[in-house]
Structure formats: structure tokens, C-alpha cells
């Protein structure tokens, strides 16, 4: 179980990690990066699957279904657009080779 202070430590360390990782990003990558971080919170799909997996009543199943649907769109859409944007970032050297 993740409880109390353990959770607080995880929140704290993850928050610093996110801040540090991003702080060295050049402006040219801001849009792909926003898109990439948008993809990463697509992990909500895992939670939505658990919520639907434990749903009993029809109401719970309906909300759970919508949750999984939305989460899948977040994850897949986020991946596709980020990948498309980053695919185009090439330096002059790479251009000449390919």
C-alpha cells in the first residue's frame, strides 16, 4: 500500500524530476514536449481500465467505459502527433545522408 508519507515522498521526488528534466529543454522543442508530456499522462488509461474492471452496476460500467474510451484517445492521439512532429526534426547532416 502507498500511504501517507510514502505517497508524499513519491509526489515530492516526481515533482522535482519533472521540473529538472524539463528545465534543460530548448525552446524549439516546447511544442513537441508539451505533446509528449500530454502522451505520458495517457497512463490514466491504466487507471480507467482498473476502474472499469471493478465496475459492478450498469452506471459504473457506463462511466468506466467512457473513461477507458477517453483515456485511449489521450494515449494514442498523444503518441501519434508527438511522433509525427519529432519525426521531422533532423539536422543538416542527416538531411544530406538521407
Amino acid at each position, binding site marked *: 500500500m502507498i500511504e501517507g508519507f510514502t505517497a508524499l515522498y513519491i509526489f515530492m521526488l516526481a515533482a522535482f524530476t519533472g521540473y529538472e528534466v524539463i528545465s534543460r529543454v530548448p525552446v524549439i522543442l516546447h511544442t513537441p514536449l508539451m505533446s509528449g508530456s500530454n502522451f505520458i499522462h495517457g497512463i490514466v488509461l491504466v487507471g480507467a481500465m482498473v476502474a472499469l474492471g471493478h465496475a459492478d452496476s450498469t452506471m459504473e460500467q457506463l462511466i468506466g467505459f467512457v473513461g*477507458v474510451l477517453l483515456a485511449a484517445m*489521450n494515449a494514442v492521439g498523444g503518441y501519434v502527433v508527438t511522433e509525427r512532429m519529432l519525426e521531422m526534426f533532423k539536422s543538416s547532416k542527416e538531411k544530406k545522408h538521407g
Partner: protein
Amino acid sequence: MVDLIQAIYFVAAVLFILGLKRMSSPTTARAGIVWAGAGMAAAVIATFFIPHMSNFGLMVAAIIIGSGIAYASGKRVAMTDMPQMIALYNGMGGGAAAAIAAVELIKGVSHSAIALDLAVLGALIGTVSFSGSLIAFAKLQGWMKGANRFPNQQAINVAVFVATVACGVFLAFVSQHPLAILLFFALALAFGVMMTLPIGGADMPVVISLFNALTGLAVAFEGFVLQNAAMIIAGTVVGSAGTLLTQLMARAMNRPISNVLFGSFGGDGSAAAEGDAGGALKPIDASDAAVMMAFASKVVIIPGYGMAVAQAQHKIWELAKLLEERDVAVKFAIHPVAGRMPGHMNVLLAEAGVPYDKIYDLDEINSEFETADVALVIGANDVVNPVARTNPDSPIYGMPILDADKAKNVIVIKRGQGAGFSGIENALFFKDNTRMLYGDGQAMASELIQGVKSF
């Protein structure tokens, strides 16, 4: 089995952080998203093997439908429309976090008081992010126009917010009555819509970035409710990274976040700025402009969103290559807020094939304008307006700008006479060394190419 699933979640969390790290450099960025994607795929597959779950048919159906729609739309969307697409997918994530909270609240979150509080808080944030992102999408897509303001708007927004929070407190501490749950989500949806309505299109990138960070937080909170460490870590990392990114964008636009959310742009200041623009606009032919560039030793190109709208980036890159063959040094100068969000213009130029090492940002290029023979401004306006340096009355005063006015000659490609996105007259256009090349961006770029070729 449970241990194996936890181990896979752990690996996924590591891959997310490494992926994000790799996305912070142009040379490794492409690998970064693939790593994060691998982590996501592993985590999703592992989730199917969690014991005592049911409804697998519904689960697979929802994943297939959702993935199909997102894949098709994500592959098709034009690069110019990327910001609103990100807003849309982000809203979906917020909605999913809210849905998790809704299911947990209906079932009755039992394992601790903190879990219940965080479920409600995550639900509030996720729902606001959901409806707010949809409004942001509608505005950038052009389905809704500009800033929608009406009398007493701020007071009404505050009232809705207080009512939402009060309802949330009731859920967390008194009772999870179905009617209270329904009212809570309805109020949160309304608040997301109402807080986004008064914000104008120019400030939308900051708002999208903020909603992105909020969705991350909502995911982290719901992760705690479900006791899922991967969700807690990924959500929190995005929450803090997104907050930093929001600050960076707001700073680049010289718009404090509180101004974006609660202030109004322009208003009284723009009238004062118009007065001292003065002078006359001096037009130039494409062929004359081409000569100027063909015999220059250094040309700096300043593209703005107008170039992307005219789909002129391919022609501009062709022009740049022609100039380079004549040993003219060509550099692209990008303002942090060129395009619709920081980095958007880089994506648009990359799409046209411009290598990223020819693209310079504000700090790198500003000292070079004094040695440039020609600054070619295409589709940019406010980001080269010198009143941001000189006129304290101007609404954009203090915003960092590209010092195009310091180049020996300035050529501005512009569709017609008229003020920029913010409605402010541009003093650069009236300067002695500035020439206006009127016409569609793509057509003018073609004429410039013809002009340069003829020498």
C-alpha cells in the same frame, strides 16, 4: 503475478522519465517518444492481468474505438492545427481521470480519508481540464471567436468556483449522495467552460499548457486513489513539467499567468500606441526585393504564423537554399511565441525540411541583426514591433522582441495594411529602412525565388 505487474509498472515509470529526458534534445527526441510509448504499451498489457477484474469485453471495445478515432485524427491533422489537437487529447485525459473518480465515488472510496479527498480533488481538476480544453479546442479551431466577455463575468466565475468547491467539500467530508456527485460534476464542467470563455486566442497556448499540467495532477491524484504508483509518478512528473512549461511560455509572452487568466488584453493601451507610429508605408516590388537579398551577405528570415497560414514555408526554404548557393548566409530567427505556442514555428519549418541548426531563437540571433543586410519578415507582426522596447504605454511594452529594425534593410511580406493579432500598429513598418512587399505569402515567396534565379 501481482509482483510481476508491479515490476512492469515500475519499468514503465522509468521509461516515461527517460523518454521525457530524451525528448529534451533534438538529436534524441525521436527515440524519447518511442521509449515512452514502449512503457505505455507494457503498462497497458500488464493491466489486463490484474486479478479479480471483469468487463473485459467493454474494456477492449473502448480501447479499440478510442484508439481508432485518435489514430485516424492524429495522422490526418495538419501541422498548423497541432495546438488544438493537443488541447483535445489533453481534455480526453482529464475526462478519463474524472471518470475514474466518478466510479470510485459511486462505489464509495473506503480505504482512507486521504484517498477520498484526493479522489474529489482529482475529479475537480480533471473535469475542469476536460471542459476547458474543449473550449480551447473550439477557439483555436475557429468554431468560437475570440474572447467571450459579459458584465460581472469574474464575479459569476468566482461564485461558480465557490459552489463547486463547496459541493466537493460536502462529497469529501459529509456524504457521497448520488445527487451531490451529479451536481459536483455539473458545476465543475460549467466552471471549466466559464474560466476559458473570456480568454482570447493569443493567450490560448498558455492555457492549454496549464490544462496539460492540471490533467497530470488529476492523474496523479487518481493514481493514489487506485494505489497505482505508475500513475502517481507519471502524473506528478507531467504536473510539474507542465507548470514549468506554462511559466516559460507566459514569460516569453510577457504575460503573467494571472493576467492571462483574469486580465484583458489591449483595451485602452492600443489607442495610445497608434499615435506615434506616423510616417508612410513604402512598398517594394518582388524583383527589387529579390535583388536586395541576392546580393546580400547575410539574410535573417523571421517567419510568423501568417507564413504557415499561407503555406509558404516550403517556398521560403527553397528561397533560402537558392540564396545559400549564392553564398549568402541565411538564418531563421524564431520568436518564442511565433506560431501558436512556443516551438510551433520550429515544427512548421521542420515540416518544410529546414534543418534545426539553421534556426535560432531570440537570445542567439538578436545580436546578429546589426550585421545583417536584410531582415525578411513574413507573416510576423507583434514580435518585431519596436514599440515593445520604446513605448511604455503600449500593451506589449516589455515583451522581448526580435530586433529586426536594427538590420540594414527590412522587407516585410504582408497580405495588406492592417494591425497584427493584438490590434497594435507596428512601428517597424514605418521605419526608413523598411519596405513593404504586399501580397499572399506563398505567391510573394515564389516571385522572390524567380527573382533570385534570374541573376
